[in-house]
């Protein structure tokens, strides 16, 4: 009797639930689409502005579809500033930072997860807490050190520190390494492999997804960085694309069609990168969220 009544209650619940889920889904669908359009529209507005003449951009009401697209704006934008040179500088910094970060963080994460030593977890906790340190606290002494070394006006202050580990990525890689069964590395060690060989031939192949996440985030972080280059790249020929774009804005701020073309070209590599590596991105963010 009791079983039957609770069964019928369950059935009633199921049907009312499916009705309510449908309504909830429709609501979610509508709201997400409206907000999604609002998210995308600035990008669209940027592209159509980049395709207009300097007269058309001030027209009211504005044309939502450029009837005579001025593709030459994109070429002109890359001539106002040495766009390709800045892009090249940026890619050099990003690539070196990726190499430095991956090497140093993998080694450090290995030392913090696979090797047992006294005080390891305490040292790790202290090390990890630096994630919360505002960059402003270390910014000035570091500038003075780099200045005394004669590194201001070079890319060294942006690149060299990456070879000494970064707490956040060490944390990500460590979390990932902890999921690799100890038996795997023990077997290699018993077979006579040393620690470095084990790291290279056993851990690294398994670590690939985490490494690509770290590489991707490092590349993107450096591509988007503004304050670092602003402080250290005092020579115009070394500027990154972000610095160049900011200077473009300060000099030719009223020529919106060229600024939008330059902005779009600056964004393009990150958007392309995202579309090719979506899965790595999503996994990386999931890692940061859940493991926190």
């Amino acid at each position, binding site marked *: 009797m009791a079983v039957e009544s609770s069964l019928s209650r369950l059935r009633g619940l199921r049907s009312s639930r499916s009705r309510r889920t449908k309504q909830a889904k429709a609501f979610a669908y509508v709201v997400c689409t409206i907000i999604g359009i609002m998210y995308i529209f600035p990008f669209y507005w940027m592209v159509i*502005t980049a395709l207009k003449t300097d007269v058309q951009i001030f027209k009211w009401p504005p044309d939502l579809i450029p009837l005579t697209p001025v593709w030459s704006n994109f070429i002109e934008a890359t001539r106002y500033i040495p766009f390709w040179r800045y892009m090249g500088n940026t890619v050099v910094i990003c690539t070196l930072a990726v190499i430095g970060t991956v090497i140093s963080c993998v080694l450090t994460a290995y030392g913090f997860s696979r090797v047992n030593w006294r005080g390891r977890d305490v040292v790790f906790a202290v090390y990890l807490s630096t994630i919360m340190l*505002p960059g*402003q606290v270390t910014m000035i002494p570091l500038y003075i050190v780099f*200045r005394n070394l004669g590194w201001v006006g070079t890319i060294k202050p942006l690149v060299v520190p990456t070879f*000494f580990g970064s707490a956040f990525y060490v944390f990500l890689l460590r979390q990932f390494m902890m999921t690799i069964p100890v038996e795997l590395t023990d077997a290699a060690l018993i077979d006579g492999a040393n620690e470095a060989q084990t790291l290279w031939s056993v851990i690294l192949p398994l670590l690939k997804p985490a490494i690509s996440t770290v590489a991707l985030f490092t590349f993107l972080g450096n591509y988007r960085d503004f304050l670092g280059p602003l402080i250290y790249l005092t020579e115009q020929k070394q500027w990154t694309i972000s610095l160049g774009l900011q200077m473009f*804005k300060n000099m030719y701020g009223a020529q919106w069609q060229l600024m939008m073309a330059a*902005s779009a070209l600056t964004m393009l590599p990150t958007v392309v990168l995202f579309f090719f590596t979506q899965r790595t991105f999503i996994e990386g963010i999931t890692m940061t969220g*859940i493991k*926190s």
Partner: protein
Amino acid sequence: MRGLLFISPAIVGFVIFTIFPIISSLYYSFTDYNVLQSPAWVGVSNYVALFKDSLFSLSLRNTLFMVVFGLPIHLVFDLLMALLLNTKIRGLSAYRTVFYLPSITPIVATAVLWLWLFNAQYGLLNTVVSGLGFRTIGWLTDPKMTKPSLIFMGMWYGGNTILIYLASLQDVPSELLEAAELDGAGSVSRILNVVLPMISPVIFYTLVINLIGYFQYFTEAWVMTASRSGSAGGPANSLMFYAMYLYQNAFQFFRMGYASAQAWILFVIVLAATAVLFRSSGWVYYRSAK
């Protein structure tokens, strides 16, 4: 020993790039230092001068405005979006891409784009506003509007947090939700009593990280207000944020001691704010370790 070998780059880096700078920054904050001459000890006079510096207190107030209003608005918005995306709607990956895109594009480029969207006469936003028959808004020209405008813009950068929330929502065990439903809990009650407690560690994490981030708010406001001459801060300095004034003192006026004192005050404020968050984190529910 072997372990120390592997972490030695990190230890060296930690000492050179973190510990040493923290300590020397504290030392510099008690000196007068213009980089060219060696630092001269001046006691607490930098701190005394800062408390009398009206631009300093304005920059602190502007920053607190973003922390007090921007931070909760953004996190609530991001959470609502994640809850909506978690209803198993079709085309989830397309939505995810749309919401995530603004947070991977370079900040300078998006700041320039928003400068154009906010443009008083020809910007998209005022085109819409006047198209609807309202008076146009001085988004970046009216000192009362500038910070709300940046908070509005900030909602566009929510992708990262939305995806973090979404991942943690997908991790909430469905048995728990079904059990709550059998007990007669409606969807609102399920969200309040099951979902939110389950993801509260993640909410707490985003709260701490974004709080620290807001205290360092720099690039967007700098790009949008800096002029060719290097001045920045927007109309009536309504967008002069803490990190901007610090940057100016350090790298434009080369008042390294003064800027170091600013950095240490920021450090103490951030530590205190984080401590308050951790103290009041009784609402965070940690699933017992399995």
